[in-house]
């Protein structure tokens, strides 16, 4: 780096980048698998690439405050584009790469995007489709030139050409780059991330350098992440988590990010890289486990027996050994060590998890069995809580203090308060500055003391760990005044493989009752193994043996609820198994498969009344839509069962 003296305090991302280039210039900053080989760029090379791109963009007229859209899979060149925009005092706006053109048009217009750096022809085609609607969008830079030979438009530029132009641009302005970097301030907006827009139109969340760096530094210190760590960057760049893990934390801690070859090769690439720090949503962990279990079914008898026997050992003592808890017998320790050599070690190797020091999951509730499985075989899997607006940094589970159903205590530097109505409020340096051009929304989410309203309802348990129970707007109250969080109860029920969907009722009532949808695959399999003949879903759902099975599940959930005074009154007193599967075609579920509780309560009002009236069976006619658009009626006599209720116990147990 000629000329650019390291700034005193690295308080913006460009300065952090230059600092790493100076201190560890020869170490790997980013790798990408290309043509079957892992290519790597050192910190110096990364800085040089950012420099060339920034100068190239400046030569094209990119000015301070301009917005640069970034669209594509995780590629080093796209991460550099984020940095290049920030060098020039601009704002990077990453978009979801699989969004259709019209969705992109809304965000590109809302964010006043003037420049876009995209991955390939596919994304260029999408932008060309909507360019007519976007008067602001002036230049499109594409990284992969494949298929682009016949595109003659003058506003299209190859990434490499822009960099070359940047190097030429610099010849006559050697001071330009360092001057731009030194003009940056930590209170500048660094990035704009769009919310998913499940409630209304997507909003642009503006984060400053200071907020992102505070969140990243907090997380890095918390888990002692440093230059030796490796992450796999495979989650969408437009998601706050990837921005934190693959960009902000990488620049703060100086670790190496690895970009997979394509979306389909993530598993293979993960195995080759062996990341030390890993993030995945619960469904990824679930899919991995399912794959392992299916493949073990095909293994030889000896291997299968060995596998299941040692998993039993792990279940008994694995999590305790990971948490270094006392009280594990020497024999168990010996067996676990043997299991590590014979089973867990090779399994982790296949999964690419051998070197993981810290793994996080978030985004949805993770099933206790799933969570325990990974911890028991030695993966330090933890949960975190955060959102786009909070830089995904609110609560983190500390090593060795892991609980299944909490998200951990507030992270260092974060204040969390529970409002009177149960809503979780957060105050920290890592909060959004504003929603782009929406002062009214911005004002709405902050209270008078500067706390951010998360919209989630939760409470602290006796150990000071935050427990998130539901979206605040879904939380109701029982007639007694106790909190009623339907989603929390439904999730607990859905953790059983036999339960596909559950709908809990109780707002304004004395007790909680529930509808259950059984999982036809799992329950059907269970029935077949017991020679229980059935003709279809309705028949199976009505069998008394199935009711016994589900009653067992409900009562286990009740026993769990009883241990927590806040939700002990929410135990499910009566339940029924619905005679049909809830279906988006009948408007009972949203397209993303969330239950529409209010609609279901109206549609099946007769059943809800029967649950609360104490009846043991109820006749109902239901209108259903078939896939071809016709509709018909099905009728059934639905049985209703009582479930055992447990006395609230003030008992506390860490898992």
């Amino acid at each position, binding site marked *: 780096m000629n000329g650019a003296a390291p700034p005193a305090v690295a308080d913006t991302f460009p300065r952090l980048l230059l600092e790493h280039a100076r201190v560890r210039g020869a170490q790997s900053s980013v790798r990408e698998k290309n*043509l*079957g080989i892992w290519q790597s760029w050192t910190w110096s090379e990364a800085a040089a690439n950012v420099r060339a791109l920034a100068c190239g963009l400046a030569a094209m007229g990119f000015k301070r405050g301009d917005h640069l859209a970034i669209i594509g899979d995780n590629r080093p060149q796209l991460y550099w584009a984020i940095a290049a925009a920030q060098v020039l005092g601009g704002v990077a706006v990453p978009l979801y790469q699989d969004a259709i053109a019209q969705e992109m048009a809304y965000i590109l217009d809302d964010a006043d995007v003037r420049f876009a750096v995209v991955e390939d022809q596919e994304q260029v085609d999408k932008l060309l489709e909507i360019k007519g609607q976007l008067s602001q969008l002036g230049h499109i830079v594409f990284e992969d030139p494949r298929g682009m030979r*016949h595109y003659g438009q003058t506003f299209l530029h190859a990434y490499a050409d822009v960099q070359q132009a940047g190097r030429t641009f610099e010849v006559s302005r050697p001071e330009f780059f360092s001057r731009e970097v030194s003009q940056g301030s930590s209170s500048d907006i660094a990035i704009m991330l769009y919310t998913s827009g499940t409630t209304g139109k997507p909003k642009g969340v503006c984060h400053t350098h200071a907020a992102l760096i505070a969140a990243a530094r907090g997380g890095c210190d918390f888990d002692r992440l440093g230059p030796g760590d490796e992450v796999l960057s495979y989650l969408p760049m437009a998601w706050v988590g990837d921005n934190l893990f693959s960009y902000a934390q990488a620049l703060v801690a100086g670790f190496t990010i690895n970009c997979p070859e394509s979306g389909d090769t993530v598993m293979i690439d993960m195995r080759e890289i062996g990341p030390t720090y890993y993030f995945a949503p619960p469904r990824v962990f679930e899919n991995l486990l399912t794959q392992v279990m299916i493949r073990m079914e095909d293994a030889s008898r000896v291997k299968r027996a060995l596998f299941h026997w040692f998993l039993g050992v792990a279940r008994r003592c694995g999590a305790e050994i990971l948490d270094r808890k006392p009280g594990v017998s020497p024999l168990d320790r010996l067996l676990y060590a043997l299991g590590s050599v014979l089973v867990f070690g090779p399994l982790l190797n296949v999964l690419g998890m051998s070197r993981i020091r810290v793994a996080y999951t978030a985004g949805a509730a993770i099933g206790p069995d799933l969570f325990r499985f990974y911890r028991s075989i030695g993966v330090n899997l933890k949960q975190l809580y955060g959102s786009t607006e909070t830089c995904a940094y609110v609560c983190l589970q500390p090593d060795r203090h892991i609980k299944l159903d909490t998200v951990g205590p507030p992270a260092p530097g974060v204040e969390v308060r529970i409002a009177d109505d149960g809503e979780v409020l957060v105050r920290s340096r890592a909060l959004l500055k504003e929603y782009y051009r929406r002062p009214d929304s911005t004002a709405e989410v902050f209270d008078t003391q500067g706390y951010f309203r998360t919209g989630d309802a939760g409470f602290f348990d006796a150990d000071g760990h935050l427990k998130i129970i539901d979206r605040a707007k879904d939380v109701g109250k029982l007639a007694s005044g106790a909190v009623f969080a339907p989603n929390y109860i439904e999730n607990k029920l859905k953790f059983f493989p036999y339960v596909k969907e559950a709908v809990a009722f109780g707002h304004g009532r004395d007790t909680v009752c529930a509808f259950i949808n059984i999982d036809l695959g799992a329950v059907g399999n269970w029935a077949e193994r017991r020679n229980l003949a059935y003709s279809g879903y309705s028949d199976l759902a009505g069998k008394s043996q199935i009711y016994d099975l589900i009653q067992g599940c409900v009562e286990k959930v009740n026993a769990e609820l009883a241990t927590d005074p806040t939700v002990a009154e929410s135990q499910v007193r009566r339940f029924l198994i619905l005679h049909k599967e809830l279906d988006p075609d009948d408007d009972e579920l949203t397209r993303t498969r969330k239950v529409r509780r209010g609609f279901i309560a109206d549609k099946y009002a007769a059943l809800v009344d029967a649950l609360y009236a104490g009846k043991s069976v109820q006749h109902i006619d239901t209108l259903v839509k078939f896939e071809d658009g016709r509709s018909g009626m099905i009728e059934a006599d639905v049985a209703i069962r009582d479930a055992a209720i447990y006395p609230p116990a003030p008992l506390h147990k860490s898992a």
Partner: protein
Amino acid sequence: MSAAPSQRRIGDVLLKLDRISLAFGGVKALDDVSFEVRSHEIRAIIGPNGAGKSSLLNVINGVYHPSQGAVTYKGTTHRQMRPHEAARQGIARTFQNIALFKGMTVLDNIMTGRTLKMHAGFLFQCLYFGKARSEELAHRRKVEHIIDFLQIEHIRKTPVGRLAYGLQKRVELARALAAEPELLLLDEPMAGMNLEEKEDMCRFILDANDEFGTTIVLIEHDMGVVMDLSDRVVVLDYGRKIGDGSPDEVRRNQAVIDAYLGVRH
């Protein structure tokens, strides 16, 4: 999809079939068939079952030797050409029934497409030494480009026998492309595929034609695909050529309509 129109320049005649006849005993598989293929062209051969389409491909790459007529390829006329000679001159093909090595990985299968371009001696190859080593690296690079081109990175190390049918077809195309052919013969590249796989395959064929400039002769039953992809179409029925021209011309040709829909006798 592409916003700018494709600028393929259709060149001179690359392959010319002159009055080809082929008989198996008393059965006339091909009867006096003549047509030509120009370079950079996508040329489709269609016709009802048993019309002689695959036989025609086999004549082009030398598996069958015509009883009459001659094949002119790149200006040289052959009465008889053997398959390996055809391959050496830049003719590659895929088969109606997938002909891959099922137990070998995708990568190794595609590498076999490079066999003719490897020149190091047997001993050197065994020892992976000297020229064999540098050659192997260069070939692997080429193969990786094709893997990238056809988007099959995720199955690079998977044995072919474990793959779904549509992917096996794609691997077969990859192996044919690995030979860097001038003329590529595709025998029903989309048979048995679902709609999405067909769309992918169409794109790959168009891309190969566009990017590598490969001339393509393909047999296909899906008329939508044929009409979209090809520059010109040859129609065969009972071994005779009954139509030849652009997709639109062929569509309007009464003899073709009769052959496909039948005529009242």
